[in-house]
């Protein structure tokens, strides 16, 4: 009867499922690969300035903060499920946790990171805005584990939270059901070299843009830290393409692309923006809303109203660095009849997503299958295990849909009870 529900992945899907289960008095083991909870949402920015834009990021962050203090939820960070085996009374999951070298006493004062002598630091604050905020040490970089025996961080730590004796832990848990929510990997924009990502500094992916906005609250050029005056946002980079990237639509890019555009434009009155898109697929709002907003954004130049946002239905063919140091985009118009070149200070590529495949051994022990696009399917799990695939591992979806799905699925699991 004391079998728990195993949740693999601490992103919006896993967190919501774990929270729903725990409020139904189920015991949950939450296994997360990263250093803190929150998944992709950790590095995404809130898209509101003074008014909420319904991006759903805060929902995931709030759940992360909530789950670490919920009784009945065992959170394992920097951990991976190695295998799941059938036992007489359910299943046994083997979980491997990498050492963190920092205990829970860490209060996040960041002194350790300041004294760390390693170039690029070996002790880090957890990524983005996730919870818990416990630091961790990367063994490969840390001098303590080399000849030097450096202990600078331990000396300075006010709560004695550094523990160099931390070791890899292998634990097993009896479980009844598995919720698989391994989430997604953003598409690497280097796969589309013609748009300049990787070799032009000020061509950033939307993931980078979100990170910059989340850290600084405003958009800056990575090259010189100045705020860009003219920005291009290019949608569908890596999505909806049979040759490069993926053939499906990643669903959430129009949602976040338009919201980032709104955030930048409304946050900085000096910025202009061109929005390149193929089809506008904003979620949960009338299709004209964004167009209307773009149309209303005007600036007064010599008594005339000039649009600040242009919506251009086209996919730029190439990005190149001009002699003036700006980024030029070559575009054809909608009917392919004319080719124009336009300079920008910053180009944001809205990249799509690929499902993140679960580790091989786990996939084999649960008999998971991948469909043609790599999405995880589990139609006939081995030996009657109850496996539910949630979140973007199962289909492209945004945070809101992920959350709704997770609530519904977790209720199913909870009702069928711990012992399968």
């Amino acid at each position, binding site marked *: 009867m004391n079998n728990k529900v195993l949740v693999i992945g601490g992103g919006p899907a896993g967190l919501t499922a774990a929270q*729903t289960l725990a409020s139904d008095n189920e015991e949950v083991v939450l296994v997360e690969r990263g250093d803190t909870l929150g998944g992709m949402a950790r590095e995404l920015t809130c898209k509101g300035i003074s008014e909420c834009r*319904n991006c759903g990021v805060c929902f995931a962050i709030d759940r992360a903060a909530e789950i670490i203090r919920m009784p009945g939820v065992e959170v394992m960070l920097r951990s991976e499920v190695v295998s799941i085996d059938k036992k007489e009374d359910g299943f046994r999951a083997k979980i491997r946790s990498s050492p963190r070298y920092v205990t829970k006493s860490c209060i996040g004062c960041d002194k350790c990171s300041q004294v760390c002598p390693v170039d690029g630091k070996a002790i880090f604050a957890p990524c983005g805005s996730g919870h818990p905020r416990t630091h961790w040490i990367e063994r490969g970089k840390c001098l303590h584990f080399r000849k030097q025996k450096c202990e600078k961080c331990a000396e300075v730590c006010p709560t004695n939270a550094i523990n160099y004796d931390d070791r890899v832990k292998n634990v097993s848990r009896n479980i009844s059901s598995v919720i698989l929510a391994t989430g997604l990997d953003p598409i690497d924009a280097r796969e589309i070299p013609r748009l300049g990502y990787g070799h032009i500094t000020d061509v950033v992916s939307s993931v980078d843009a979100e990170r910059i906005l989340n850290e600084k609250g405003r958009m800056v050029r990575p090259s010189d830290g100045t705020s860009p005056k003219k920005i291009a946002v290019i949608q569908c980079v890596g999505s909806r393409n049979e040759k490069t990237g993926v*053939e499906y*639509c990643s669903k959430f890019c129009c949602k976040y692309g338009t919201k980032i555009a709104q955030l930048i434009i409304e946050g900085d009155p000096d910025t202009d923006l061109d929005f390149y898109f193929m089809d506008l697929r904003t979620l949960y709002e*009338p*299709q*004209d809303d964004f167009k209307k907003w773009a149309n209303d954004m005007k600036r007064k130049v010599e008594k005339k109203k000039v649009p600040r946002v242009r919506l251009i239905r086209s996919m730029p063919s190439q990005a190149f660095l001009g002699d003036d140091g700006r980024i030029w985009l070559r575009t054809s118009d*909608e*009917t392919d009849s004319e080719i124009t070149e336009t300079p920008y200070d910053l180009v944001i590529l809205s990249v799509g997503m690929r499902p993140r495949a679960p580790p091989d051994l786990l996939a084999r022990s649960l008999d998971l299958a991948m469909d043609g696009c790599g999405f995880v399917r589990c139609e006939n799990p081995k030996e009657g295990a109850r496996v539910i695939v949630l979140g973007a591992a199962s289909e492209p979806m945004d945070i809101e849909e992920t959350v709704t799905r997770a609530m519904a699925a*977790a209720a199913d699991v909870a009702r069928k009870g711990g012992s399968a």
Partner: protein
Amino acid sequence: MKRRIQVVICRVCSGAANVLDVEKLLRVANEAPYVGSAIAVNYACNAKTIAQIVEEAKSREVDRMLIIPCSKSDVSPALFQAYKKKAKINEFLMETVDLVGEIVLPHRDNPARAQAKAESKLLAAITRMAMLEPLQKSSEKMRTKNVVIIGAGVAGVEAARQATQAGMHTILIEKSDKEVKAPGVVMPKTRLVSAKGHAGNFILTIEAGEKRETLECAAVVIASGGDWSDAKGPLVQACGAKPLYRLVQEIGEGIISREGVVIVDTPDPKADITSAQDFAWEDAIQSAIEIRKKSPETEVYLLFQEMRALGLDELSYRDAADLGVRFVRYDKKRPPHADPKDKSKIVVIDSVQGQTLSIPYGGVYYASIAPNPDNVSISEALRIPMTESGGLRRGSMQKGPIATPRPGVLVCGSAQFPRSENISRLEGRAAGALAAQLVSTGIVEFGGSVAEVTPDKCSACLTCVRTCPFEAPFIGNAGKAEIQLQLCQGCGMCVGICPSKAIELHNYTDDQLSTETASYIGGDF
């Protein structure tokens, strides 16, 4: 009341980073008025320490406690439990001060100022603590395990199924007399008239046929969906355009026109805001594929402003194109219209190619869902705000995607904004599950830090009644405002706006807030 405060400082956390001098803080606390005991402990969350703190509380006869941990979230609930049970301290007389989050971490580069600020903060907190009143929470039993679901569409039926499986009694209210396959009670030809009560114990008035009845329930799920009956727009008048679900039905019955099928995104392409679509394209593309497969000679046209083939529907979009479905993007300024000379044709200008197409059709369908006009009466009955586009507005994202601002009322499916069948079903399941979770406790808790009216000061100006988003204040029999405790969420909005200052929020009274502020301002740092 004796007003003796125990101050507990967690030495490990607050002394962290050697910013603060804990001993000095203790001295400051000990010298402050009303303080009966001030101790510093290592690890306040430890079971042994908790016993020690409780012992100290008992022997010093304190009646309130101020704990200074790492942050509010890090205080073990066990400590509060022990205080409540063993030291018999009222739960509203225990407060935390987050010295670490507010002072140690952000001011660690300036220990002198941090120390002065911490002392001042501590004194302000003690000042506040001394003014707090013990409060009691009350509870009442839910009278029923009923979950009322409004609308027997895809979402509603799914919600009923989910809630029934979780052991709730579901009552499905449907305005039409269509056949509904759902567990629980189904009431056809019924609509919601009004609602009273609060989460856990609602009393609804419904109209079943001619009869009015009252219905008790613990939670309400709104699944009113979109409206299919009353579409307007030039395409409906000129071409008899029908909603998409009719096409799905016709395909199911094997009726497929050979003269061609046109699916257009909206029956009113010129409208200011095309408020529909979104997920509806999923169903549109699937239908188009099915027609081409079942009747290859039927031409299928999809006319749209934006092709919203979301997610994996993109693959169906491609399949549909391979099967010969014709996709035509049109511009809003040049919308599709019936051919004035030959009404059996639709004229549209392809905005990509620039060509003018004249399409003969056997049937025209639109992939949009208009908001349900019943939303107005539902919103009035349950008092839930509406969106600009005529849907029901959900509450803060902090409460999740399917919760309305009103506790105990959930909204799913196209009632918010047009959804495809799949997403509606999904939201229905989530709403059913959430409603069941809400009801399964069987108890409604209320009271505590809530608002209270001083009748003598009240001038019955109705400002509070208008301001409260939960409709807790009402004008009682005495002609003065009263607060219905079960509805009050303790936000204090009515308190701040009351022109006569007749309402107070317990433990956040004007006096308490101003005195705390004054004390904090008084500190020099």
